[in-house]
């Protein structure tokens, strides 16, 4: 395998742009950077256009005959539908403030990963096709166009779009620094929509989206298997705590519906977070009669449609409200997830209104979640922070004393929501050793894990490690300074992506979800003396007993 070592990767970063101008530097689709093409069956299943076999590294992408026309029309339509894209196409002054804010640029040095240039890839075509200036320049010939920053959409340009639009994780860090708020996420979202019009998705988005559509979750876990997984976790919890938890599924008449990313049902370390939810709900049920149900139909919080098109996003997201309505719950509680919360916070309500639900009120503390008055969906950290503030959880933070924890803000919850203090408050309540990473890499300036927006595939590992560098580097800093050994986060893709990134860049640091730490500290009524944490690692002071 040709994946570079960390040292090689660092040495390979050359922030100096090439001699040739970007329009004259043809795209080279590199192994380790690009993701495999979408499987036609997945594209077909959700009814998206032009499902077919195609291979990004082959010359011929088997495009439909009239692909240029499709893109042109699609572009026009989106300019008419989204003010964001229209304004962002027009007002960039190329000041360059965004350039070194992108984790993919920092980690690769590829100038086309500067947000400004990623946008220029589309903007150049926009200028050519949709602006007066472009038309006037075009009158004088191709070279004049180029001077004006305009160019025609050719197959090479299209390939460049595809290659670089799937090297953006829609993290919005650049938009924090842009003096006009130009958001590359918007540009990438539109660009990917256009590409999807001619069947050019990547499989790590297309197949999960199809799976979500069919089974309710991106891994394609069928309902019985979903239940089996949670039963299996219940066994583990019983081993660790001596308490049998009994989650309920698809239960009509429950007060609250719980939806979380399915990744947590499937792979470590997300599974421990999932166990955390189960223990938390059990605790609340035993002590306060808390009434919550899981759903196998709406068993995915994450929304892979969001990486395909606004329409696909809505088609998947609609299941949340549909299931809430079918079950007759009062409101919805959402688990730890990144882009799931971007969709819930900024998009979902337009798909409503959920007038069949009630304004969320914590049945335990009576707190009205006024910030979710309209969507009727509350974030698990908002919910837990409120519980802890009211002293409703019995916590023993010393059970996390073997951990020195830092916290990674997810892109979406920080820049698409502003959920910054709730997780920190919880962290400080459940563990005694918490250290922040440097200020320029947390909160609204946080770095992406490097694999967001559907780029968490296996074949693009070099890209992922490039993109993961800034985050990992900050973790390394606190690891060296404070001996941090645990990176906590509230996003399922983080739990998957950061694990790989840490193994690569800072192998001494492990990754955890926030609720896992809560569950470690949470004292269940009637539990036995715990000897291990949820990972079956011995608790502080219990190492000896365990070894014997």
């Amino acid at each position, binding site marked *: 395998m040709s994946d570079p070592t960390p040292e090689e990767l660092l040495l390979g970063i050359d922030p100096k742009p090439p001699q040739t101008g970007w329009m004259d530097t043809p795209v080279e689709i590199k192994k380790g950077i690009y993701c495999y093409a979408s499987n036609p*069956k997945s594209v077909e299943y959700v009814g998206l256009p032009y499902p077919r076999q195609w291979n990004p590294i082959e010359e011929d992408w088997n495009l439909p005959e009239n692909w240029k026309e499709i893109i042109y029309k699609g572009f026009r339509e989106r300019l008419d539908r989204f003010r964001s894209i229209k*304004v962002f196409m027009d007002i960039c002054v190329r000041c360059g403030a965004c350039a070194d804010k992108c984790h993919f640029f920092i980690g690769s040095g590829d100038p086309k990963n500067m947000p400004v240039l990623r946008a220029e890839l589309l903007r150049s075509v926009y200028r050519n096709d949709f602006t007066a200036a472009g038309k006037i320049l075009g009158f004088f010939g191709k070279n004049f166009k180029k001077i004006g920053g305009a160019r025609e959409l050719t197959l090479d340009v299209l390939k460049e779009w595809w290659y670089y639009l799937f090297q953006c994780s829609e993290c919005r860090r650049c938009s924090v620094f*842009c003096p006009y708020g130009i958001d590359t996420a918007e540009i990438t979202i539109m660009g990917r929509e256009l590409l999807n019009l001619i069947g050019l998705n990547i499989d790590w988005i297309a197949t999960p989206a199809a799976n979500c559509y069919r089974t309710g979750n991106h891994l394609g876990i069928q309902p*019985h298997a979903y239940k089996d997984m949670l039963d299996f976790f219940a066994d583990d919890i019983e081993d660790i705590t001596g308490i049998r938890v009994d989650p309920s599924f698809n239960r009509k008449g429950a007060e609250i519906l719980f939806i979380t990313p399915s990744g947590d049902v499937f792979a470590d370390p997300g599974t421990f977070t999932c166990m955390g939810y189960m223990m938390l709900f059990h605790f609340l049920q035993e002590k306060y009669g808390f009434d919550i149900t899981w759903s196998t139909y709406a068993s995915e919080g994450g929304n892979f449609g969001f990486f395909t098109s606004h329409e696909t996003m809505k088609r998947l997201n609609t299941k949340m409200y549909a299931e809430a309505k079918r079950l007759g719950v009062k409101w919805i509680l959402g688990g730890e997830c990144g882009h799931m919360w971007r969709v819930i916070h900024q998009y979902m309500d337009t798909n409503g209104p959920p007038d069949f639900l009630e304004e969320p009120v914590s049945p335990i503390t009576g707190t009205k979640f006024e*910030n979710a008055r309209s969507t009727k969906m509350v974030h698990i950290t908002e919910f837990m922070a409120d519980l802890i503030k009211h002293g409703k959880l019995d916590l023993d933070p010393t059970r996390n004393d073997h951990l020195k924890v830092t916290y990674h803000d997810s892109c979406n919850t920080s820049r698409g929501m502003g959920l910054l203090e709730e997780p920190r408050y919880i962290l400080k309540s459940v563990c005694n050793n918490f250290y922040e990473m440097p200020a320029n890499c947390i909160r609204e300036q946080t770095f992406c894990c490097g694999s967001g927006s559907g780029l968490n595939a296996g074949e693009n590992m070099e890209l992922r490690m490039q993109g993961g560098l800034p985050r990992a580097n900050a973790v390394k800093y606190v690891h060296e300074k404070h001996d941090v050994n645990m990176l906590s986060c509230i996003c399922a893709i983080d739990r998957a992506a950061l694990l790989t990134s840490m193994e690569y860049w800072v192998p001494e640091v492990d990754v955890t979800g926030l609720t896992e730490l809560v569950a470690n500290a949470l004292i269940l009524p009637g539990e036995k003396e715990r000897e291990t944490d949820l990972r079956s690692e011995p608790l502080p002071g219990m190492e000896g007993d365990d070894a014997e």
Partner: protein
Amino acid sequence: MNISYMYSLIAVMVLFLLAYLGAQVTVGKVFLGFIIPFLAAITFIVGFIYRVVDWARSPVPFCIPTTCGQQKSLPWIKSAPIENPSTTGGVIVRMFLEIVFFRSLFRNTKQKLKEGDKLSYEWEIWLWVGALAFHWAFFTVVFRHLRFFLEPVPACIQIVENLDGFLQIALPGLLLSGVVLLAAVTFLFLRRIFIPQVRYISLASDFFPLFLIMGIAFTGILMRYFTKVDIVGIKDFAMGLVTFHFHIPEGVGGLFYVHLFFVSILLAYFPFSKLMHLGGIFMSPTRNLTTNSRVKRHINPWNYPVKVHSYEAYEDEFREKMVEVGLPVEKMIEPEPPKEDAPPEEEAEPPEEAEPPEKEAELPEESEEKE
């Protein structure tokens, strides 16, 4: 090597010659003095309005502000009312800071790779300083120039001019704004030349307005301090422009026509170019929306119904398996499933195949799992 600035430089030099030579003949003076400025002003006004209206015609279907601070959630958590504005008042302050003080640019950092493996991000204030100096100086200069078009000169203009000349050196008194404008525009130009990444992304259309404004500032300074142009004549001329009583001013040289021509070109060029960021910043949905998207429903005007995989279809496909593990179902299994059950199952086949089995198997270990 990006030489796009050469095109712009040549273009501005050609424009200079055009104006300078044109001003030598009467016809040229009429064109440069009246016709072109008039057309330019119209192009600017109509073009600017057209562009803004055109943007406004496209709706904002989703509430997508970039949140740069703590949300307003639980009452005991301190929220950031400006960086994450949940009220219209907050948005107004946020926009004010953005437009007047370039709040976002103030955050700018410079990233470096140190010792081969340490990333650092240092506060980089110079772009902010340069940009702010440029825009404020430009604004002051434009504001000061209103004295040519208004009789009597309003007190506020006089005050600004007095402030501008507070150094009280040279004769006529040195006005700081002109000098700062020229210095700032030169800084912004040098930045584009010497920072490799910025040079790489710069287009001719980024240099053109810089050279043009450099030319405007330079000719202005030349006229005021060196050739000492006849101010009274120019005032007379400018009043003529706004009252439609055109007459050719006496005792004004080619430099004045160059100055005026450059301004005209800038005005006419404005609506077709990136300079429209002046209007665009007000329209940017990541900045000008309230962040209360979970409190108040944002309406998407073109929202349309979409095809959804219904619970019924889902249960139809998995009913047997659900019943087997004791999951509640809406419809119990009939003794002999009718033939109609077959199609959805067939339709449901693809994605299962689409997920390669070996991939699923390696998921837990390789952490290939997606959110």
